């Protein structure tokens, strides 16, 4: 049986400051090496100053993943040399001397399947190395410490996955969960990274590192399974090793450095005293936690009678569910959910589009009310939505500017219907014998009015005309 385990690193991008200093956790907008201070670049004499909010957010993640949460947590030093690591040790957590990381054993359901979480720990992100130069000879390694000290949560799973599809589903659920908790924005570049370990029946465990995106993770896991199966079928032993994902060639390559042999000389970080996380704090955090995705979904279904599929899509995305929460009333909930999932999601399907969108919750309220009152048709609503996202104008302005108001004038509509009847004798004949096919003619009328014809009135008039 194939076994896959994951090690996921998620930055707590929603925090104001880094894990041990007041530099910005959102380092992305800075020129290289400008979001730094004596603490995060490890200047002699500086000491870590723990960001309590980071401990709280990490504990929330642990609770959301049903992990055990110890009474007291501690930090450890992981000692190794690397140019992106200012102090040449990373402050992280460790459970080998007892459970002292923010989260112990937990679970996350992927459909019907239970994935066990091994542990969750809070640690600092290193800086970034940037390689420049076209050939081996003029290769330069640049170091940017803006990222150094960014709060990072490591989530380790048991090898409970059997195929790449399960891995992908898990990562989708997990990233939705982290976003819903308000701790992280997984869509930010580098905010969420993952390593995988893969083994097949009768083989040793192989770790894969350096995987840039979740999309590549799935590919890397797939490649690795195939590689191992191919070795196995030829009776070549699968050795325990670390392999790197080669992004260009889309294959895994054995690592030259023997990372598994590194001795990190872990020991307790004396500069950060043990932190007590008692029941009182846990209760407080629980009360501050946003409603979970599954509970949202249930509420949408039971309270607003929103179809399961729609509720599922809506609840799992924080951006859209927040929008829904702000825009809906008891009366229009179903309509708002419908507009979001059928029209809006396709319209602003990337992070950039979402950020530049001018749409506000009141727009959705306007649109759904106008549909319900028959002021505009669904088709017109879709056109209006496109304009709103672009300009942020009110619906009324857009209706008059683009002439989107319904054609509900009987005289005008009759003229169009008569024209359609003339043009479509075959369809008219059919509709007479089979009333259900009349919808084809309604569609034709819609076409001629650019979707503005009041559908109910059109149908009534057509029926009268044909009989």
């Amino acid at each position, binding site marked *: 049986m194939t076994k896959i385990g994951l090690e996921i690193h998620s930055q707590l991008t929603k925090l104001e400051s880094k894990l041990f200093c007041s530099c910005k956790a959102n380092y992305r907008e800075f020129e290289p090496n400008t979001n730094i201070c004596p603490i995060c670049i490890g200047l002699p004499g*500086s000491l870590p100053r723990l960001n309590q909010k980071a401990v709280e957010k990490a504990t929330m993640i642990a609770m959301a993943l049903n992990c055990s949460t110890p009474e007291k947590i501690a930090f450890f030093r992981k000692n190794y040399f690397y140019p992106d690591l200012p*102090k040449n040790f990373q402050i992280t957590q460790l459970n080998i001397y007892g459970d002292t990381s923010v989260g112990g054993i937990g679970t996350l359901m992927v459909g019907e399947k239970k994935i066990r979480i091994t542990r969750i720990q809070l640690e600092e992100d290193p800086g970034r190395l940037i390689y420049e130069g076209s050939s081996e000879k003029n290769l330069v390694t640049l170091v940017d410490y803006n990222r150094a000290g960014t709060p990072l949560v490591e989530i380790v799973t048991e090898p409970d996955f059997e195929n790449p599809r399960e891995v992908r589903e898990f990562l989708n659920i997990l990233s939705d969960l982290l976003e819903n908790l308000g701790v992280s924005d997984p869509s930010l570049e580098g905010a969420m990274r993952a390593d995988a370990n893969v083994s097949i029946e009768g083989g040793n465990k192989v770790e894969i590192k350096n995987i840039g995106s979740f999309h590549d993770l799935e590919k890397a896991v797939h490649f690795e399974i195939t590689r191992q199966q191919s070795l196995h079928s030829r009776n070549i032993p699968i050795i325990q090793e670390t392999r790197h994902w080669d992004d260009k060639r889309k294959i895994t390559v054995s690592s030259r450095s023997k990372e598994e042999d590194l001795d990190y*000389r872990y020991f307790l970080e004396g*500069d950060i005293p043990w932190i007590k996380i008692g029941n009182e704090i846990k209760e407080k955090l629980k009360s501050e936690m946003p409603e979970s995705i599954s509970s949202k979904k249930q509420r949408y279904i039971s309270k607003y009678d929103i179809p399961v599929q729609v509720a599922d899509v809506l609840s799992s995305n924080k951006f859209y569910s927040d929008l829904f929460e702000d825009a809906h009333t008891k009366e229009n909930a179903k309509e708002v959910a419908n507009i979001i999932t059928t029209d809006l999601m396709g319209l602003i399907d990337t992070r950039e589009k979402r950020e530049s969108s001018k749409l506000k919750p009141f727009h959705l309220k306007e649109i759904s009310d106008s549909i319900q009152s028959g002021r505009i048709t669904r088709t017109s609503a879709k056109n209006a939505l496109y304009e709103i996202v672009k300009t942020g104008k009110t619906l009324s302005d857009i209706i008059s500017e683009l002439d989107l108001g319904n054609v509900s004038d009987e005289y005008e509509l009759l003229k169009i219907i008569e024209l359609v009847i003339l043009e479509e004798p075959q369809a008219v004949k059919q509709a007479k014998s089979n009333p259900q096919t009349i919808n084809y003619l309604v569609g034709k009328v819609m076409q001629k009015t650019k979707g503005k014809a009041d559908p109910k009135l059109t149908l009534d008039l057509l029926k009268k005309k044909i009989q």
Partner: protein
Amino acid sequence: MNIKISALQFTREVKSGNISAEDFIAKTMEQIQNVDDSLHAFLSINDKAVDQAREIDKKIKLGEKIGQCFGMPISIKDNICIKDTKTTCASKMLENFIAPYDATVITKLKQQDAIFVGKVNLDEFAMGLSTEFSAYGPSKNPWNTDYVPGGSSGGSAVSVSAFECVASLGSDTGGSVRNPASFCSTVGYKPTYGLISRYGLISYANSIEQIGPLTRTVEDAAFMLNLIAGLDPNDNTTVDNNNEDYLKDINSGIEGKKIGIIKEMIGEGIDPSVLSATKDAISKLEGLGATCEEVSLDMVKYSVAAYYTITATEAGSNLARYDNLRYGYDFSVEGYEFNSYIEKARKKLGPEVTRRMILGGFVPSAGHTGKYFLKALKVKSKLTRQINDAFKKFDLLISPTVPILPFKIGEKINDPVSLFLIDINTVTANLTGKPAISIPYVISNGLPIGIQLIANSMNDKLLLQAAYALEKTVQLPEVPI
């Protein structure tokens, strides 16, 4: 002008207008000029000190608000950061490190209008007890310049003892304040762990070290503590002392106090003159109404081994950043080559630091941690339990600060183990986080001997009261410089 006065005397004299800060600082700088060529306490001098003193005099004249130091000249161990000032740790590795920020203790002293006359010598990265491991040459003992001043805060002790300042800040990881204080006949005080912020103190073994004052009198030590103690958001290990005034009631005496004489610190290996000084001090304390009784802390015999194991481990990590990439050699990007870099990576570190870095790579490593590092931690926690038990019965503990007299420069430098063992009486306070103080007690054949008192955590006030009482029984000759 008499510069041989205590810190408190200085502040009173300036406050009352008897002397000006400028005159005193000028005279102090002159003293440094005169004696430091032979003593080598200083690694760098503040050439703006006189100007700064003039500013303070101006403030006093104009009746402006003035800090409690009134321009008091203080020397600072060169492992504590002063903004825009070289902070070398007496290492070639940090030869050109100019601190871009102030240590918390410096910020606090600046607010109180202290003047930093210069940065003083130490064993490289505070590793040693003689200043012989300074990359810039040893300091000399003012009582006899053939002898070591102790260490690692040797420059601090020398500068206080030779009137090159009125007080100094050192750091104490295993006795580095108390040992040179004892060797140079000054007061040296290591407060409870967490009482003084370590922010800006360049770490050697961060879980046990503390900044501490070296002064002429116990009162001065209490005064300094008043100025620099307390919670600091920049150091998560600091503790709240509720703005305790350590000077208040310092003359309360020690009548009725129970003092334990640590058996393991007056036995094997102790110099006879040190033993007789200790016995004398004990009888003096009894004469003041204290009751003294021997107490055994048998973990003390493992304390030095545990101390060096733990400090090497932490040093190996704390000093890992000095990898030549960001400190040390100037590299031109041209011709940069990884292997030559690795080869040179630690070459700017001296022999003692190198020894401890190697030790620090070994004792906590995967195959050996159980045998060494974890065992050392066990000793640490057992020792703490023992000393806590002792404090159930005793208010204070007493021992000589150092079991031997100051030794000659060069005498022990090739015998690291015998050097290590000199720490036997001082490391216990560090491993257990307790406050301890060395009081200058007697000059034996021209060399100073100090007595150490230890109190329970956060009982610093009681410790200072007892030290004050003992100090009052002592008459010491003037240093022969």
